[in-house]
C-alpha cells in the first residue's frame, strides 16, 4: 500500500479534467402520464374513464458555449384522435453580460408562478381553475423573452416577453404580436429552513377584448372540445403570486411543506358597447391557495382551494345575453413516489360549476419519467 507514490502519480496524471462535461449531451427525457377518472373538471383536458394525460418527449442540450436549446413535444390522445403538439422549441443565450438572458422560439410564458413549470412537476392532477380559465391551463406561445437578474443578495428578476398571442385571441384578424408580458420576481430565505418567492405579472393582450358575439357561438364554450386556448380573454390580465417552502434544516428529502397562492384579475373583456347589458362582465377574478406536505421520502399529501369567474355571452338576434359564472374547486390529493422518477397520485375534487351544480371528481393518476430528468424550478 504505497499511498504516497500513488498520490504523486495521480497528481501528475490527472491535472487536466478527465471529462469536461459531467452531464450527458443531449439530454432526452420522456414523461408518461396516464389516469382513470370519474367525472370531469371544468375547462379540463382530461375526460372521463381511462386516458392519457400529458405525455412528453423532451430533448435539451447546450448548443455551444453561447446557446442552450430545448424541444418539448406533447402527445395527447382524445377519443380516436392523437395530437402531436409542439409545446417548447426555443434557444436561450448563456453568456450575455449583466445577468441578461434572451430566449426566442416557442416557450411557456413566465406569467404567474406555475405557468413556466412543466406539468409533470405539479402536485395536483390539474392546474387550478384560474389557470384553466385565463391561460388555457398553461400558456405557451411563439415569441421572444428578455430576463435580467440583478447582482443582489435579494433575488430580483425582471422579464419582458412579446408573443404572437394566437391562442389568446378573440378576434379573427388581430395584431401579429398580440401579447406582451412583464414580470417581476423577488425571493430570498427566511432562514436555513424556509424560503419564499413573490411575483407580480402583467399580460397585455391586444386581441383579448371580444367585440362581436355570434349566435350561441362565443369562444367560451370549450368544455368538451379541449381547445388549448384560454376560456375567457380580455385586454389586461394582472397576476400576483407567493410561494413559501419549508424543510427542517433545509433538508428536503425526508420532510417538506410548500404553500403557494396566486391571484389573477382580468379586465377589458368585452367591447364598451355591451357595458349596459345585464351581467356584462367588467372584471373577472380567479385565485387558488394550495398546501402540499411531504411527510416521508415516498409520501406527500395536499389540499387546494380555488375559484375562477368567467362568463357566457351570445347574441339573440339584436340583443345580447350574458351569464356570469363561477367555478369553485376544492381538491385533496395523496401521492406515493416509487422513486424520484415515479409518482402515483389519487385526487378527489369537489367542483361547483357555473350552474351551481356540485360534482365529485375522482382521479387516479401516474406520472413517471425516464431518460434525462431536468432540474426543477423552485
Amino acid at each position, binding site marked *: 500500500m504505497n499511498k504516497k507514490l500513488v498520490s504523486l502519480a495521480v497528481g501528475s496524471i490527472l491535472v487536466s479534467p478527465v471529462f469536461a462535461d459531467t452531464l450527458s449531451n443531449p439530454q432526452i427525457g420522456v414523461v408518461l402520464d396516464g389516469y382513470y377518472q370519474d367525472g370531469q373538471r371544468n375547462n379540463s383536458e382530461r375526460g372521463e374513464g381511462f386516458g392519457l394525460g400529458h405525455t412528453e418527449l423532451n430533448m435539451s442540450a447546450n448548443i455551444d458555449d453561447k446557446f442552450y436549446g430545448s424541444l418539448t413535444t406533447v402527445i395527447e390522445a382524445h377519443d380516436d384522435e392523437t395530437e402531436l403538439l409542439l409545446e417548447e422549441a426555443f434557444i436561450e443565450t448563456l453568456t450575455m453580460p449583466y445577468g441578461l438572458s434572451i430566449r426566442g422560439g416557442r416557450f411557456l410564458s413566465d406569467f404567474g408562478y406555475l405557468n413556466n413549470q412543466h406539468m409533470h412537476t405539479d402536485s395536483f392532477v390539474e392546474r387550478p381553475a384560474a389557470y384553466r380559465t385565463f391561460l388555457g391551463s398553461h400558456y405557451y406561445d411563439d415569441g421572444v423573452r428578455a430576463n435580467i437578474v440583478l447582482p443582489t443578495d435579494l433575488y430580483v428578476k425582471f422579464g419582458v416577453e412579446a408573443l404572437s398571442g394566437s391562442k389568446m385571441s378573440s378576434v379573427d384578424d388581430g395584431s401579429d404580436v398580440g401579447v406582451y408580458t412583464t414580470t417581476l420576481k423577488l425571493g430570498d430565505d427566511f432562514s436555513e429552513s424556509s424560503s419564499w418567492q413573490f411575483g407580480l405579472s402583467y399580460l397585455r393582450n391586444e386581441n383579448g377584448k371580444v367585440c362581436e358575439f355570434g349566435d350561441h357561438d362565443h369562444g367560451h364554450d370549450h368544455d368538451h372540445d379541449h381547445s388549448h386556448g384560454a376560456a375567457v380573454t380580455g385586454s389586461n390580465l394582472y397576476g400576483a403570486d407567493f410561494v413559501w417552502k419549508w424543510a427542517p434544516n*433545509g433538508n428536503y428529502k425526508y420532510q417538506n411543506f410548500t404553500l403557494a397562492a396566486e391571484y389573477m384579475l382580468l379586465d377589458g373583456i368585452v367591447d364598451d358597447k355591451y357595458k349596459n347589458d345585464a351581467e356584462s362582465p367588467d372584471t373577472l377574478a380567479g385565485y387558488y391557495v394550495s398546501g402540499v406536505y411531504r411527510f416521508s421520502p415516498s409520501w406527500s399529501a395536499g389540499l387546494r382551494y380555488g375559484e375562477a369567474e368567467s362568463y357566457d355571452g351570445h347574441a339573440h338576434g339584436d340583443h345580447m345575453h350574458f351569464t356570469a359564472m363561477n367555478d369553485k374547486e376544492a381538491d385533496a390529493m395523496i401521492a406515493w413516489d416509487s422513486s424520484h422518477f415515479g409518482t402515483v397520485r389519487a385526487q378527489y375534487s369537489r367542483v361547483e360549476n357555473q350552474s351551481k351544480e356540485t360534482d365529485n371528481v375522482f382521479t387516479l393518476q401516474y406520472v413517471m419519467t425516464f431518460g434525462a430528468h431536468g432540474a426543477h424550478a423552485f
Partner: protein
Amino acid sequence: MATGVAIVSSSIMASSSAMALNIFVCEPEWQALVHSHAPDANIYSATTAKQDPHYVQARPSLIAKMRQADMAMCSGSELEVGWLPMLQVRSGNPAVQDSAPTMLYASDMVGMLDTHDHVDRSMGDIHAHGNPHVQFAAEYMIPISREVTKRLQLLDPDNAHTYMRNGMKFRANWRNKLAEWETKAEPLQGKNVVGYHATYRYLFDWLDMAQIADLEPKPGISPTTSHLQSLTKLDPASFDAIVYSSHQDQRPANWLNQQINKPTIQLPLTVAEGQSLDQMYDQVIDELLRTLVNPDTSTRS
C-alpha cells in the same frame, strides 16, 4: 473560447483585483478547500452539513448568489443534477456555465470509482460517471488543489503568487496528513461495515475497508422494512458496524442495531461550520477507530 466570453471574463478579472472574489460552492467541503487557497474570498456554500446534496431546491437566494459568483465549484458527476443546472441557466451568469474555466467540478480531477457503461434506473439513483461523493477521495485532494490554484490564478492574476503559495502549503500539509492518517488507520484495514448509502466509497477504498451492504434497497431509495429485515439475515461475522451520515435518518441504523447488536457509527457528511477539510478527516478516522478498534474505551452510551 469565444471572444464574448473572453471579454466578460477579463472584465470580471479587472474588477476583481479591487474587491474580494465571490465564489459559489455546492457543498461545504469545497468551501473549506477553496478557503485554504483563497482566504480573502467570499465563499458561499449552497448546502449545509445537515442537507442531502441530492435534494436541494433551486431557490431564489441560490440564484441570486450564483448571479454574483466570479467562480463556482461543485462535486459534479451528476450529484447536483437536480438543481445546479437550473441555477446556472437562471443566474444568467457566464462565469458559472459549464463552458467557463471558472466553473470547476471536483470529480473531474478524481479517478472515479463505480463508473458504469450501462445505467438503468431500476438500479436506483446511480451515476454513469461514477460515485460522486468525492469529498472523501483523500489522495485526489492533491490534484484538486492544483486545479483550484490554476483556476484562481486565471481568474485573479494579480494575486497569482498568493494562490500558488497557499496551494503549495495546502498540498504539503495534506501529504503529511495522508501519511499520518494511513499509519493511524492501519488497524481499520479489512474492517467491513453496512452503510446507509455509498457516501464513504472513496474513504473505505483508501483505508482498505469495505461496505458489504446498504441500508438503502437501491441507491437513493429510502430504507424499507422488508429490505432491513433481509439485512438481519446477514452473517454476523461478515461485518463490524453500521455506518450512516449526520444528515440521514438514523432510525433504520438504530433498528438494525437493536436486531443484530452491531454498533452504529455516525460519520459527518462534510465539514462542520468552521472546520477545515483535514479536521473532518481526523474526525472520521477517530470515529471509526473508536468503534471498530477500541470499543472498550468508547464513550458512546
